[in-house]
């Protein structure tokens, strides 16, 4: 086992791994990488609670397990409730240190697990809830979820009837619960992801990380483009990176690099059917969301000038 740290973009990142190789994720899985990075950020003193999702499979078949920390499998709709229960149990045992992480997919968060999440957030349970968002029910064969973006193909939103509702605004829902910390992140920006995870770890109460985790088979793209797509999601503005503290204080991490949305869409087969007009509609939607977010940032900071442009060349 390697110890010590390596510098990545100026950030010390531990070499120690909490994710064993041999796990069952597909080639280039963003969800596997998200787990690897989060555990590097928060360290080994954690328990993971996992509802049904791809990660159920990734972790390995009984009696094998891919993490070096304990993981409790639980029912699809129960991540937040089960995590809160585990946390309460640990406290009864006198363990106040161990972080309990609920690790759920977008289906398990935006859809079926939303009620449990809302309840836990409303009670401000001391859990770190992480939604790795691959924007569909991937484990069961790419069915749409309420996190599936407008216009995307899934097996239940075929090309003839692509997704016709915008992605549900999870961050707004969580902000409305006034939880102490909620943030978005994605795997192409590991420094940002790690900093946010560490920050969340240092706060008590319900904390939420919403991590965009590209899924090469589900997004119909080459596995080697996984990071590229994640980066373009941020560079084009499609997936804004930001933090919300106490449900009201908004801080945008980066502003987009001024790249057309198309650069993000064109790498993914799930958007291949879109016409120019449809892309224009998506662009409008992204713009409107940014306008809203910039206002929220300005309301907190009095300016938007302090938001750095996402580091991006090309």
């Amino acid at each position, binding site marked *: 086992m390697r110890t010590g740290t390596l510098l*990545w973009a100026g950030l010390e990142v531990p070499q120690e791994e909490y*994710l064993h*190789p041999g796990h069952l994720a597909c080639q*280039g899985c963003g969800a596997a*990488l998200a787990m*690897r990075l989060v555990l590097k950020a928060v360290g080994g003193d954690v328990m993971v609670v996992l509802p049904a999702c791809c990660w159920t499979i990734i*972790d390995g078949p009984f009696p*094998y397990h891919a993490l070096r920390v304990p993981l409790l499998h639980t029912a699809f709709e129960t991540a937040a409730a089960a995590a809160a229960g585990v946390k309460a149990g640990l406290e009864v045992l006198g363990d106040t240190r161990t972080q309990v992480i609920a690790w759920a997919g977008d289906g398990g968060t935006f859809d079926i697990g939303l009620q449990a999440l809302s309840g836990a957030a409303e009670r401000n349970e001391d859990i770190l809830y992480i939604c790795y968002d691959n924007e569909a029910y991937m484990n069961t064969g790419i069915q749409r979820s309420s996190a599936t973006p407008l216009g995307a193909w899934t097996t239940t939103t075929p090309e003839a009837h692509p997704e016709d509702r915008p992605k549900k605004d999870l961050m707004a829902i969580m902000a409305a619960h006034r939880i102490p910390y909620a943030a978005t992140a994605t795997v192409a920006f590991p420094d940002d992801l790690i900093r946010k995870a560490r920050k969340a770890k240092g706060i008590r109460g319900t904390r939420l990380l919403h991590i965009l985790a590209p899924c090469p088979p589900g997004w119909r793209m080459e596995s*080697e483009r996984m990071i590229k797509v994640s980066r373009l999601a941020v560079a084009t503005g499609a997936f804004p990176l930001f933090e919300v503290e106490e449900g009201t204080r908004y801080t945008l991490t980066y502003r987009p690099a001024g790249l057309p949305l198309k650069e993000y869409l064109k790498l993914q087969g799930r958007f291949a059917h879109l016409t120019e007009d449809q892309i224009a509609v998506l662009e409008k939607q992204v713009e409107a969301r940014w306008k809203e977010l910039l206002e929220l940032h300005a309301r907190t900071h009095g300016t938007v000038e302090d938001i750095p442009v996402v580091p991006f060349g090309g």
Partner: protein
Amino acid sequence: MGSDSMQDLPDAPLSWGDTRWNKTGNWRHMRPEVRERAAPCAKACPLGNPIPKVMTAVSRGDLEEAARLLLERNPFPAITGRVCPHPCEVGCNRRRYDEPLAIRSIERLVGDWIQEHRTVYFPSETGKRVAIVGSGPAGLAAASYLRRQGHRVVVYDRNDRVGGMLVDAIPSYRLPRSVVEREARALEQMGVVFQLGVTIGRDVSVEQLLSSYDAVLVATGAHGERRMGIPGEEHFLGGLEFLRAVRRGERKPPGRRVAVVGGGNVAIDVARTLVRLGASPVILYRRTRKEMPAIEEEVERAEADGVEFQFLTLPTSAVKLDGYLRLVVVRMQLGERDRTGRPRPVPIPGSEFELECDAAIRAIGEVAETEFLPREVLDDQGWVVADKFTGATKRAGLFVAGDLVTGPATVVEAIAAGLRAGRAIDRFVRGEALPVQEKPLPTVPLKEINLDYFPRASRVSIPELPLAARCKTFDEEILGLDLNSARGEAARCFSCGSCNLCANCWIFCPDAAIHLDGDLPWVNLEYCKGCGVCATECPRGVITMKEELAREGAVA
């Protein structure tokens, strides 16, 4: 796990084993290959300077490491860092993206650091003796290499100072003499012996050297000045002669208005020197600006200095009148291309005009003087014949290098030739086979650089004397970078083909199958699923995906 009763079952099924038994390497059909490749800058550099590695060290502020890396290839970075026409910057991938790296300025910074922090190196003696004729860059580079190998090295030069063209031709506002002197002194401290004021061929013959040394390197440059062959030629000064006089302290211009004939570096240096002496030079060149063989940057500087250019002109005669010269000049036009691919200038009949000036200087090219060499190493025209790589001639133990072989070229080419000859001589005196040229590494083109990681950034601006001031002095006109600007500039380097341990491949691997303990990443092929993320995200083309052919221990 057999159990006989319900009591044996745990309350909940527990997985105690981990997944490492599952060798996911057998999912793979593409394999990441970690292999460093040449950067285009290094490929364009005649010395093959390890530029990306140097840039990485400089960007970290580690000049000691930068110096170590650079000295492996270039013995005199303080010199090339000033006068090299920097083909590296032309090759730089960043040039095709925004602006090339200021490689030469950074080389100079490292070179100056070396001059200040040098420690003397005492090699262990082999007892072999090598004579080097000519103390220009070719001879000095060979001397440096051969001395480091432990051979006794004696350098002969007919001049009274060490450096060849570096101290006798290239003007001091571009290369101060002190910079060359420091290198000469360091060689002396290492044990190189200089015999100055000795003309080989007159005072001592090449044959005598061959009989008293184990090997001889002749690197006497190209010092014969070409003549125009026109009536009144005797009224023209030689360009090299003029520059040499100025380098020796002459500060009186040969006249106020001075015609300079030629379009190469010598003509430009002559004209810019004249400006600094208070004269008004006019360059007469028989082709157009586009065909000038001089270094483009130097032409621009000459223009800024106020040098006048008359293109497509050629003097056909000169007469000396009362205190001034009258040149007859014919206008030219460009005709068909000649063997060198440049259009041939042809006189326009009847276009002659007169040009009056106080003096005229001819700088139309230099040729090597070879009469003092043994006949057997010359061809019918009197050119030296030698192996292009090693400099070995037909005569055993006699090697040649530099401008003597190539005709007027550049300092860096002379250093490279001197080092190649030095390596060959080292083998020769040890009785080993001469080295052969290695196959060059493939380079990394811009399209294999992951530009996502490199926001556009402009090149550092290099400090220099203000125009008005530089035209009045022989002080160095281009100044050095400070460490901070150099670090920032070096950080612009893509590090094409050279791993700089950025750790992208490591951090982005979803299978935790890449480790970074040494100088290069190590891919654990037992688990690597072949997703290709590392290859795409390596910003610099060190990792590429290769088709998986035979897979050891594959599970079908």
